[in-house]
């Protein structure tokens, strides 16, 4: 039983490798925060299928940080971003977040995680008491549920229920006008898809009571093929279709539904369509898909918004995403709160940030507000319109009324037992 092959690596190189590993591992503990600069940690997803979430979040944050630093930083301290990949795994997100605070000496956290990762980072924030802004999770429960509430965590992302309330009322108006009674839904089978669809149909039926849902499809997240879903919808012969598929899933769905000529047969409401990531990728974009705005530089139609969108595009040679504006807003809020508090301390920033209203290119009226009671963003631009296959993609966006949105949101919270 002789070994037939000598191993191809010497003992010395193995030891060197181990030594190097140990050294890099130990180094961060030595170099602890000693400084004038303030480090902001940012766990996000930079690899795998949704790497674009991380890269476009990072781009936006980097762009804002450059502006803030040029204007003197946070209370005189220059910002240094420490951005790490969590690979979209919640345990890695928790690990990275803890490490950013404990090892790298980050004093503030931008949590640019999606879905379960955001809840994992939320627990870290609860544990360590570190200031934290969730920038990408749109799940309503993250801030609406009082059980989740901690004083040091905020959210600058959209909230699912806001979208659904206005989306429902917009769709109801069209449904009434065109007599669309039979509806189908097709949304990804995970929390965001289920919650958003349920809320959307709830408000659709509320504003247009004779609407009936005759077919539901729940493809898996990242499913490559939607043929069976497309044919199922065609079988049901609905007059209108709602979908909250997003990103590559949405474009696959559109490409596959296109060759079945589905879009001529029903009105389609796809909340995540009007985002450049999807708009620019689909080669044969059907005309007249109704969509909520994600990020679009022509809505709100202000010079500030257009300038921001153009600056981003010039800097990175790509369009900003929905995630981009959400992350940029987080940095704008932190900068303003820090200026008001005249401090870069997380606790003081948090105090000022509660209820803070700032001027912002993404605000429905030029401002956005960090609502004090549940520490989530309100007043951002919400609108719906129909798509065309070239710039400006969504020429005419109908803006949502925040007064109605907030009223109905309060009612929704009560019905959920959140208040």
């Amino acid at each position: 039983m002789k070994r037939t092959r000598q191993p191809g690596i010497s003992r010395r190189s193995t030891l060197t490798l181990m030594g190097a590993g140990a050294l890099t591992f130990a180094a961060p503990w030595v170099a602890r925060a000693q400084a004038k600069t303030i480090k902001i940690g940012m766990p996000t997803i930079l690899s795998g299928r949704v790497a674009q979430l991380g890269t476009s979040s990072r781009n936006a944050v980097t762009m804002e940080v450059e502006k803030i630093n040029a204007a003197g930083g946070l209370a005189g301290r220059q910002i240094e971003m420490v951005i790490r990949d969590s690979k979209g795994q919640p345990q890695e997100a928790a690990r990275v977040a803890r490490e950013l605070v404990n090892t790298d000496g980050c004093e503030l956290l931008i949590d640019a995680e999606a879905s379960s990762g955001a809840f994992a980072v939320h627990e870290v924030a609860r544990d360590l008491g570190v200031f934290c802004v969730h920038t990408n999770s749109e799940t309503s429960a993250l801030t609406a549920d009082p059980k989740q509430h901690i004083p040091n965590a905020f959210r600058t992302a959209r909230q699912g229920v806001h979208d659904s309330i206005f989306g429902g009322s917009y769709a109801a108006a069209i449904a009434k006008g065109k007599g669309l009674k039979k509806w189908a839904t097709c949304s990804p089978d995970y929390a965001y898809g289920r919650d958003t669809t349920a809320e959307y149909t709830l408000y659709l039926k509320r504003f247009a009571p004779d609407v009936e849902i005759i077919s539901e499809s729940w493809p898996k997240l990242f499913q490559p093929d939607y043929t069976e879903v497309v044919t199922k919808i065609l079988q049901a012969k609905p007059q209108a279709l709602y979908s909250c598929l997003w990103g590559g899933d949405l474009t696959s769905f559109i490409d596959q539904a296109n060759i079945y000529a589905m879009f001529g047969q029903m009105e389609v409401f796809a909340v995540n369509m009007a985002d450049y990531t999807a708009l620019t990728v689909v080669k044969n974009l059907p005309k007249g898909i109704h969509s909520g705005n994600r990020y679009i530089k022509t809505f709100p139609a202000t010079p500030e918004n257009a300038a921001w969108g153009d600056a981003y595009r010039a800097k990175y040679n790509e369009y900003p995403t929905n995630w981009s504006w959400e992350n940029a807003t987080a940095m704008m809020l932190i900068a303003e709160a820090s200026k008001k508090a005249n401090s870069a301390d997380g606790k003081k920033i948090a105090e000022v940030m509660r209820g803070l209203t700032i001027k912002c290119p993404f605000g429905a009226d030029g401002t956005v507000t960090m609502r004090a009671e549940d520490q989530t963003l309100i007043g951002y631009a919400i609108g719906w319109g129909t798509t065309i296959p070239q710039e400006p993609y969504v020429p005419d966006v109908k803006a949502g009324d925040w007064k109605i949105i907030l009223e109905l949101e309060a009612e929704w919270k009560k019905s959920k037992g959140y208040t």
Partner: protein
Amino acid sequence: MTELQAARAADSLSAPRLEAGSKRLRYLDLLVALAAFAVLALLPLVSDSKALLDFVIRCSAYGLFATSLNLLVGYTGMISFGHGMFFGLGAYGYGLIMQRIGVPIPLAFLATLAITAVVATIIGAICVRLKEIYFAFVTLAFQMLIHSTILSWSSFTGGDQGLRGGIPRPPFLGIDLSNHVHLYLASCVLLVLGLLAMRQIAASPFGYTLRMIRDNPMRASFIGIDVWRAKLTVFVLAALFASTGGMVMALFVSGAYPEFAYWTISGEGIFINMLGGVATFLGPMVGTVLLLILNDTVTRFTEYHGIVLGVVILFFAIGLRKGLMDFVVEWYTQRRDRASGQG
């Protein structure tokens, strides 16, 4: 015969020698365990680095999981692709019991082990009849089935968002697991006790039965061993330790997520075993430490960690052709043999 098999065969050939001195060996194990625990327990006094403690806690979770997988892969020759389901089961079982019923932590711990034992017995009874790659596939299928159940049954499991809102950590017997150092010490205790228990299993007559089944199942059944029963027993035992690992992970992140029950966890377990070596008891533990260091350092520097990790794997698979501990042990024995040959 492949080198891996050769290493295993060498391992089982030395069995009688080990058996003779097994009593002494067990005391030695106990001593080593005590010493290891002492070193770990002193760590918080020496260093105030929270990241170091976090690192050890994660090592406990993955180490227990990977070593238990080696009971199957290395000792019994059962390549399970679905061992991660018990890691997930531990995390979810413990988290759900604490969130919904709120019993004292030790009780929740034991209840989770009991649940794991029942589930593992049922799944094991179906799986262990199959051999080689088919066993691997059927365990993988069960893992995917459990994972898709967790995703679909969202009213109970929280679906893709996992168990949210934190897992309560009420103090018991003066131990407060929401205290970082207490949590650290508790996971060290679990790790050391778990490893010691698995070492006892491996060194017991039952452990030798397993190795015989691995090397020659026919012979084992000829001399009256109930192969199916022995395989099922080790399958359930390994599941219990994996479940313990899952509980440590749930305690660490204060939640449970479907990713814990995904096949990638099983894949990482296999990878850890190959990295550290399957012919040495501590191989998987070494592999765990290696993988975590690798992961933590590489993700720190690049988002293209896939390439880096891939190249490292290739180095081990094509370069060394075995895990690090196996490599070291073999190199050491060779050197000793050569030295004694010359002397």
